[in-house]
């Protein structure tokens, strides 16, 4: 069909007109839409942050440029400028000579070029002729001889040319040197200026790159910014790390640095977020945890791909913050991103993620909060009720109750289990009367249950009888208690001496607080216990201090005098048998029909009913998680498994009515749970059975923080093995030893690394008291800290010099000493190294641990050479230095106060490693800060007091003394 001719259709023009309008409108609409799209794509939340940060950075760089030159530098610069001017003048004066030289240099350059070319061409020709010669000889051609001649000629030519080239270069150098000489002052000044201005120049170059000039503006215009904008989304893709996105491992992409722009730059420490510099740059962003290798979300969690505040899954720490952040989600309270399983960790909880890579370690270096949390978790025995992977086979933390009747009585037990903290500060939690909405009915029920538990424990306890202890002296006992070492692990009442950090994780709170002991135990038991703790409870961590009968009697007398009468005056209501029956009935009805239950109860005697309720209550409360109780040897623990609690989804948590108070985060929920374990029952109508069971530990909020961090570390996230921190064999031995060191609480008495030796503070307090008592007496307050070190057990590892017990003593000696420390190294010390009763495996673990810490041979120490002449020189030096003035030698004590005495040198050959003796003699303070051993052998022979002996050579004299020391014997 032919198109209608326009002329033949008069209406066409009019219709076209309409179409034009339609097209015009729609194309304008389209343009606007495209514009909106471009703008929407352009107008991102992160862009203003980048612009603002750029402004900050320009300002910072400008200030740095201003400050790059100090006033002295400015002065020097003036000086240089003057020198430069002078140099230029000098050069100007010799202009003619310089010009002439430069002309000659140009000529030489041309000459060099030509000759060098000739030299190289000759070499090429030489190669050709040599080839032709080889060919001729091989083929037996007659031309061989002429080729050989030609070759000789060329070789001679080549050699000549080489000399010529070298000659020209030499002349060139001479002339250049001459020019430099003429311009010396000028050149030196120029060099000095470049050096002085190096930093400033570097900064100026940086500034040029970031200044918002014309180029940068154009680069960042909408649409044009697709090419190479300076404002753009930054991303890090740490190799080998994956996110689990709906069951699909997807490579990790962290875009956090799009807004957190100052994260790796020094100088933004005080800048507001998101520009703040990361703390401890050398450890994290730039150190072993380099940002390009680990990214951000592996530690912080959150959604790395997000480029807006909400889509990055930021998490508020507090309710106030939740409100303040409402602006980001355009809501009154911050609305976090839904359906993202791993919201960002709130500040402080980040350390929980360290263990993803730092596996198999007792402590993660520097992760103080996490380490404290784990320590608290272990001490409170959380794993007794909650299964936690890695903590399955540990002993129960509370004392064995299968013989409890031999130790105490039911009057005490009732009061203790009802409210342990009314006796003394303790880690035993409180099971009853801890609901904030406890009703009178529940309170009555609590008493019935507690009474029933007491009955059960007494009924199911073996009863050993202990004879009354020999008479002891309370005052002597107190003195012994304060000096022999008990206070490394125990306190009495509110004693804060040497307690650092969180009280419950400190070394001096490792054992129970002994306040109120007299109200708790009977004297016969206590006497037997302090003499040999493992006889009563083989699994106890309490070591044996080898107390004599009299010492044990004295200490018993002292501890038995620590009574808490207010505690024993607390009421103990009679058993309410009706209520008891009612509760027992409730339990029976759980597993029997109503009729059977009634019949069952009917068939029980009074006593049986009480015992039945006791058994049920213990079962329900989980007492056996921490204590050995007859009848519960194999009962499964009652708590939720915590092995993957750190990955628990927030929507699986019951916030109950607490959601009004708490931000919706796992961290906040856990914290609340630790502080008020039964709070999520608040205002709920539940049967007594169904109420929450976790007892109250009375944690402080800091303790709860640490525990939350520990629990968050139990995650199901897997970091590929390649990315994990692998332990070397040595490190593995160290970790095994660390566990034993912690369980034996060695740090209560010894400094090991950055912590420990807490008992020193106790010693210092006694010295202080003595100094105060007699202000003109022998104790000088200025020397107390020093004396406390001298009177306390030795440091076992020095973090700074990285030298410790392993490098010091021979492994065999250490093994014997740890097995039986009764022969004292420092006989003047009142404090004793206790006998732990370590197993052979433990002894080996500990000796290996010390050796591995110091990277010294284990277990054998190489034999050392002994040279009679050196031994004689050593003996001479030993006499001249009067070592016996302070050191015990073969049991002979020096005439010194105890603070000045030093270990027996006759034991050196079997105790010390010769290499250590040498390091020690070289610089004793480096190994034991505060030691009284002077530095006798200075590095510089001129400073040596006996420069005539072995030429005053430090190493030679030390070697001689070491050799002599090794000849000393206890017999000689």
């Amino acid at each position, binding site marked *: 069909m032919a198109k209608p001719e326009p002329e033949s259709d008069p209406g066409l023009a009019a219709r076209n007109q309409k179409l034009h309008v339609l097209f015009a409108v729609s194309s304008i609409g389209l343009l606007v839409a495209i514009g909106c799209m471009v703008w929407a794509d352009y107008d991102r939340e992160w862009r203003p942050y980048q612009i603002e940060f750029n402004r900050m950075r320009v300002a910072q760089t400008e200030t740095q440029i201003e400050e790059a030159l100090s006033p002295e530098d400015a002065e020097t610069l003036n000086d240089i400028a003057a020198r430069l001017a002078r140099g230029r003048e000098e050069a100007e004066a010799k202009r003619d000579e310089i010009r002439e030289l430069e002309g000659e240099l140009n000529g030489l350059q041309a000459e060099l070029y030509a000759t060098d070319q000739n030299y190289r061409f000759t070499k090429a020709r030489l190669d050709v002729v040599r080839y032709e010669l080889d060919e001729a000889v091989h083929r037996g051609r007659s031309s061989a001889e002429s080729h050989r001649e030609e070759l000789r000629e060329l070789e001679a030519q080549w050699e000549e040319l080489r000399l010529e080239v070298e000659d020209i270069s030499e002349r060139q150098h001479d002339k250049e040197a001459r020019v430099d000489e003429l311009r010396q002052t000028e050149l030196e000044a120029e060099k000095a200026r470049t050096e002085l201005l190096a930093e400033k120049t570097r900064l100026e170059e940086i500034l040029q790159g970031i200044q918002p000039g014309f180029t940068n503006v154009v680069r960042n215009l909408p649409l044009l910014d697709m090419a190479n904008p300076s404002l753009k989304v930054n991303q890090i893709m740490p190799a080998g790390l994956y996110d689990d996105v709906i069951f699909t491992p997807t490579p990790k992409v962290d875009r956090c640095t799009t807004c957190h722009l100052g994260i790796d730059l020094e100088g933004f420490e005080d800048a507001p977020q998101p520009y703040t510099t990361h703390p401890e740059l050398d450890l994290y962003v730039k150190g072993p945890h380099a940002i390009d290798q680990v990214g951000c979300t592996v530690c912080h969690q959150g959604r790395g791909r997000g480029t807006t505040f909400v889509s990055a899954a930021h998490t508020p720490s507090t309710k106030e913050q939740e409100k303040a952040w409402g602006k980001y989600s355009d809501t009154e309270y911050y609305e976090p991103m839904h359906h993202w399983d791993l919201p960002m960790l709130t500040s402080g909880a980040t350390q929980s993620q360290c263990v993803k890579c730092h596996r198999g370690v007792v402590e993660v270096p520097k992760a103080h909060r996490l380490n404290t949390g784990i320590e608290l978790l272990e001490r409170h025995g959380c794993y007794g009720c909650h299964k936690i992977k890695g903590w399955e086979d540990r002993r129960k933390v509370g004392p064995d109750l299968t013989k409890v009747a031999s130790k105490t009585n039911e009057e005490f037990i009732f009061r203790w289990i009802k409210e342990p903290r009314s006796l003394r500060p303790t880690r035993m939690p409180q099971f009853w009367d801890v609901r904030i909405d406890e009703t009178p009915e529940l309170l009555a029920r609590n008493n019935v249950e507690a009474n029933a538990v007491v009955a059960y424990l007494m009924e199911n306890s073996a009863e050993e009888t202990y004879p009354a202890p020999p008479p002891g002296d309370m005052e002597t006992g107190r003195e012994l208690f304060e000096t022999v070492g008990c206070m490394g692990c125990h306190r009495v009442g509110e004693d804060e001496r040497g307690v650092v950090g969180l009280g419950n994780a400190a070394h001096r709170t490792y054992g129970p607080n002994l306040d109120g002991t007299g109200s708790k135990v009977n004297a016969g038991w206590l006497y037997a216990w302090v003499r040999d703790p493992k006889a009563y409870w083989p699994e106890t961590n309490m070591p044996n201090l080898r107390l004599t009968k009299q010492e044990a009697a004295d200490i018993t007398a002292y501890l038995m005098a620590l009574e808490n009468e207010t505690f024993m005056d607390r009421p103990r209501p009679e058993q309410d048998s009706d209520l008891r029956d009612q509760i027992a009935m409730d339990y029976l009805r759980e597993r029997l029909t109503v009729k059977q239950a009634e019949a069952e109860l009917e068939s029980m005697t009074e006593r049986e009913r009480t015992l039945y309720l006791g058994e049920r209550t213990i079962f329900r409360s989980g007492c056996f998680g921490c204590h050995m109780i007859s009848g519960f040897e194999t009962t499964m623990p009652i708590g939720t498994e915590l092995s993957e609690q750190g990955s628990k989804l927030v929507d699986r948590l019951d916030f109950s009515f607490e959601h009004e108070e708490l931000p919706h985060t796992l961290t906040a929920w856990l914290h609340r749970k630790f502080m008020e374990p039964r709070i999520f029952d608040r205002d709920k109508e539940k049967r007594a059975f169904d109420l929450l069971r976790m007892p109250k530990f009375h944690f402080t909020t800091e303790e709860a923080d640490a525990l939350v961090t520990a629990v968050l570390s139990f995650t199901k996230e897997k970091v590929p093995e390649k990315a994990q921190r692998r332990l070397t064999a040595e490190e593995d031995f160290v970790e095994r030893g660390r566990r034993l060191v912690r369980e034996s609480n060695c740090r209560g008495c010894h400094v090991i690394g950055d912590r420990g030796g807490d008992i020193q503070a106790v010693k210092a307090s006694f010295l202080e008291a003595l100094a105060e008592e007699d202000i*003109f007496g022998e104790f000088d307050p200025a020397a107390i800290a020093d004396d406390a070190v001298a009177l306390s057990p030795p440091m076992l590892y020095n973090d700074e010099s990285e030298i410790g017990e392993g490098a010091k003593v021979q492994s065999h000696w250490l093994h014997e000493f740890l097995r039986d420390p009764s022969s004292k190294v420092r006989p003047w010390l009142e404090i004793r190294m206790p006998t732990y009763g370590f197993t052979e495996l433990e002894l080996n673990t500990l000796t290996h641990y010390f050796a591995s810490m110091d990277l010294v041979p284990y277990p054998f120490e190489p034999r050392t050479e002994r040279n009679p002449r050196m031994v004689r020189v050593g003996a001479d030096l030993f006499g001249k230095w009067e070592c016996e003035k302070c050191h015990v030698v073969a049991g002979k004590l020096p005439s010194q106060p105890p603070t000045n005495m030093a270990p027996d040198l006759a034991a050196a050959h079997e105790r010390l490693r010769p290499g250590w003796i040498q390091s020690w003699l070289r610089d004793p*303070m480096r190994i034991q*800060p505060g030691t*009284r051993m*002077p*530095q*006798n052998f200075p590095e510089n022979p001129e400073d040596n*007091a006996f420069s005539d002996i072995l030429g005053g050579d430090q190493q030679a004299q030390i070697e001689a003394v070491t050799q002599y020391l090794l000849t000393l014997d206890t017999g000689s």
Partner: protein
Amino acid sequence: MYRARITSTLFVVALVATVGAASAATITGTVKYDGKVPKLKPINMNADPVCAKKHTSPVTSEILVLGPGNTIANIFVHVKSGLPAKTYPTPKEPVVMDQRGCRYIPHVMGIMKDQPFKVLNSDGVLHNVHALPKVNKPFNMAMPAARKEAVREFGKEEAIFKVKCDVHPWMAAYVAVMTHPFFDVTAKDGKFTISNLPAGTYEIEVWQERLKTQTTKVTVADGETKTIDFTYSRPSK
């Protein structure tokens, strides 16, 4: 060389300034003891017979040394605060501490930061000089009979600390490291003088090894000499 010249120039400037400031103020005073004088046990040097032999009469304790009228010796007096912020030149001549008769002489001394601390051993006995600073690096150097002198320095300002000998537990000296020269130690007459002070209000602190410190504020005008006396009374026990 250049630095040496600067230092010496500074010295001259300081000297001129000192001489020029004839109007500079002086604070002086006496420190007295009030109360029952404790009976101090004489030092027992039996632990080292060589030391004991050096003395013919019992050696009096240095814990509290009183002069006639119960004036106290060995009081360290210094300007604790109020000085203008400026750097005072460090004297090149050392502060000397001798070990004589198995005692440190002097018993109390002030030293400026970086000033040489020269230790002599006139005894010809094995001593060790164990300094117990907390801010500066502690040191413990042995001085056997043969070693007659040694020199050390303290690079940082520090409140008074103890120096002791671990061979002879009775030996004690006290050293304060100052950043300015406005300090003094009393002799038996209990008198101290701090001169050449610019006009101003200062906190003056006195220290006795067992009676601790006392402070007082004092304002001096140019050319003025002010006397402030301190009295230590025996703490009631």
